[in-house]
């Protein structure tokens, strides 16, 4: 180490050395050290070819090969669908041996069968299986969408009178038309028409109850999830097991618990806070569980990278782990919220029911949206039932809005950016670069007085040791 190392092995030499063992090189050097059993090379090895010489420099953009669905696939599905429908019609409408209500079911069964046959005629076994299961997957998706559509459709149709009233000719100004959202039922009796009354009281109740529940669950839930994922240990495993078991805690049991432990024992009256506590008990495990799952997906190498930079555990969690899964955590919170917002049984046991607006969560009954829906629907009057379903529909809308908000706040997965964001970030980058360059100039003008090096003092200290080490090895292979 007293003299600069002269390169004992250079890239080229190594390459050469290696090539000595390769048949290509062997042929080249005419000194074959290894005889490979190869088909004899063609008598005359062609020289290499430069294909670009034969091409235009700027060709017109050619069309592209259409890949994906072939016309055959599409026609098979369409044909089988048509045939299935026809057979269904024959059985139901024409022959009448199956009730017309079963038309879709019959047609579907025939469609699947006929499609399988069609595919079988032209394709090998695996393709038939593939197409069959594709249809099954599509069907599963369709069934799920259809059921949700039925549920929502039923709710909307059952509550349509409320909407109709809103659009009625004599409903008055915009404010009057929207009375359903800003009035309560305080002065509205069972005989009142739909032009009066609304669900403002329930909306307030829902917001306050879920708000209180979130104030408790978000910090507690996320802390616990972090505890499970980052601290660990035997106790953490026990907590995780308990929490997982608790995700299935029957909501009515949670309600009973709060009813006995809070209302009977302390408050002696129904109140919104007790309901919030019951919702909390139900939301906590859901939130912890989904947050825990998300946290466990953070690649271990990110944590290692953080630790290797000299960070403490807390810093790694706060600066690396949590930001990486921000969107996942938002989803966890929203899932918990959406679940808590729809809880009925525990709220019924703890918040009581009222038609009056109540802003005070600690005193007196406080209705929430799902509870109001249930209570409305329980009433005999058609107007009340319509209000009930309209409330349920409104609840769905509220949840939908929450989802949208969460997606906006939570953003996409860490590290992915949309096209719009990319443009913005590019602009920001330009700003940052300009700032850095300005800083650099300023620093240099200040620093040129002493050493002229474009480096902050700390960096100098770091990268320019006080005394140059003697015999610093130099790059060897240039």
């Amino acid at each position: 180490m007293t003299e600069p190392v002269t390169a004992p092995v250079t890239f080229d030499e190594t390459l050469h050395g290696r090539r000595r063992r390769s048949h290509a090189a062997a042929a080249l050097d005419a000194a074959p050290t290894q005889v490979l059993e190869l088909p004899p090379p063609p008598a005359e090895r062609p020289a290499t070819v430069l294909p670009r010489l034969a091409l235009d420099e700027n060709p017109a953009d050619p069309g592209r090969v259409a890949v994906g669905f072939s016309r055959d696939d599409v026609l098979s599905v369409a044909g089988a669908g048509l045939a299935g429908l026809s057979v269904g019609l024959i059985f139901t409408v024409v022959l009448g041996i199956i009730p017309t209500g079963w038309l879709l079911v019959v047609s579907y069964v025939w469609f699947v069968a006929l499609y399988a046959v069609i595919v079988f005629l032209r394709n090998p076994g695996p393709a038939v299986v593939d197409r069959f299961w594709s249809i099954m997957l599509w069907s599963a998706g369709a069934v799920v969408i259809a059921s949700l559509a039925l549920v929502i459709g039923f709710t909307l149709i059952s509550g349509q009178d409320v909407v109709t009233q809103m659009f009625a000719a004599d409903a008055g100004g915009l404010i009057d038309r929207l009375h359903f959202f800003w009035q309560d039922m305080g002065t509205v009796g069972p005989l009142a028409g739909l032009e009066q009354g609304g669900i403002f009281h329930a909306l307030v109740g829902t917001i306050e109850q879920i708000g209180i529940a979130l104030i408790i669950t978000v910090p507690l839930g996320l802390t616990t999830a972090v505890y499970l994922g980052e601290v660990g240990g035997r106790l953490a495993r026990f907590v995780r097991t308990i929490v997982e078991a608790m995700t299935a805690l029957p909501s009515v049991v949670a309600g009973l618990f709060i009813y006995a432990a809070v209302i009977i024992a302390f408050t002696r009256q129904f109140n919104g806070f007790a309901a919030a506590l019951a919702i909390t008990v139900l939301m906590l495990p859901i939130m912890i569980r989904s947050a825990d799952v998300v946290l466990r997906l953070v690649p271990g190498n990110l944590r290692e990278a953080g630790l290797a930079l000299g960070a403490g555990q807390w810093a790694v969690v706060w600066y690396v782990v949590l930001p990486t899964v921000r969107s996942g955590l938002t989803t966890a919170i929203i899932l918990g919220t959406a679940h808590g917002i729809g809880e009925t049984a525990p709220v019924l046991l703890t918040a009581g029911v009222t038609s009056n607006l109540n802003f005070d969560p600690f005193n007196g009954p406080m209705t929430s949206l799902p509870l109001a829906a249930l209570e409305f629907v329980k009433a005999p009057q058609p107007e009340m039932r319509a209000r009930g379903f309209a409330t349920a529909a409104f609840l769905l809308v509220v949840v939908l809005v929450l989802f949208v908000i969460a997606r906006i706040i939570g953003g996409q997965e860490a590290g992915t950016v949309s096209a719009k964001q990319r443009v913005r970030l590019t602009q920001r980058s330009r700003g940052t670069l300009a700032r850095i360059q300005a800083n650099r100039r300023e620093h240099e003008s200040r620093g040129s007085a002493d050493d002229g090096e474009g480096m902050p003092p700390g960096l100098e200290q770091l990268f320019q040791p006080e005394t140059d080490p003697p015999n610093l090895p130099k790059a060897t292979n240039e």
Partner: protein
Amino acid sequence: MKTLFSARTENHDEPDLVEHVQQPGGLVADNISAWFGDHKVLDRVSLSMAAGEVTALIGPSGCGKSTFLRILNRMHEMIPSASLFGEVRLDGDDIYAPSQRITSARRNIGMVFQKANPFPAMSIYDNTISGLKLAGIRATRAEKDLLVEDSLRKASLWDEVKDRLEQPGGGLSGGQQQRLCIARSLAVSPRVLLMDEPCSALDPTSTRRVEETIESLRGQVTVVIVTHNMQQAARVSSQCAFFLAAQNTPGVIVEYGATEAMFAHPQDDRTSDYVNGRFG
């Protein structure tokens, strides 16, 4: 073994091959252009890969070697935004023709990836014959047994794993996993085997074994291998194509030909610079 490979015999009934009459497996890429969305990454690339020989694709990173390779067995389509123009003819048939089934193209043209990807839930045995299962080919136990041994022997893996065939494939070392993937591809008797940097994640010993495996396949299967390692290209291939993508332009083949010619006296300066390690 008859049922198992009867399909292979059938193929000989197909129209005569234009490029390669002696042996099946000749692969011709004709005027291929490729895009990701609107980003063009390959521009009118044509290359003929001789049946039974090893063709190496070399070139700096990002020049479209992987894209080209994936176009050769229709894996390119897996990426939603991807599109392409041109023809790929396997023994004369365009694999992109509407009458062609994507699955059969891929079965005929096997592929081995940079990162070994055996099916971790399956045993080594099952991994080896997983292609049969996936293609819906029925075989008796005895046929399967023979096939497993043959394929593992071809991939030079038999001796190392014959005592633990029923253990999960994920338990092997990286190099063994890679050779298991080669064995798995060989078991469906492909005419072509594509390899995308098969050794770049392996240690030298494993690399050596894989290269030996490639040697032993010569003459039986057409091999197309992408590699970053010039020595590897020189060691294993008989033909070579140099890809290059200049700044912000799509990738093209700058030069191709016999490997020794490419390394000994390339005609293009860029090829010469690249193979001599002056860039890339």
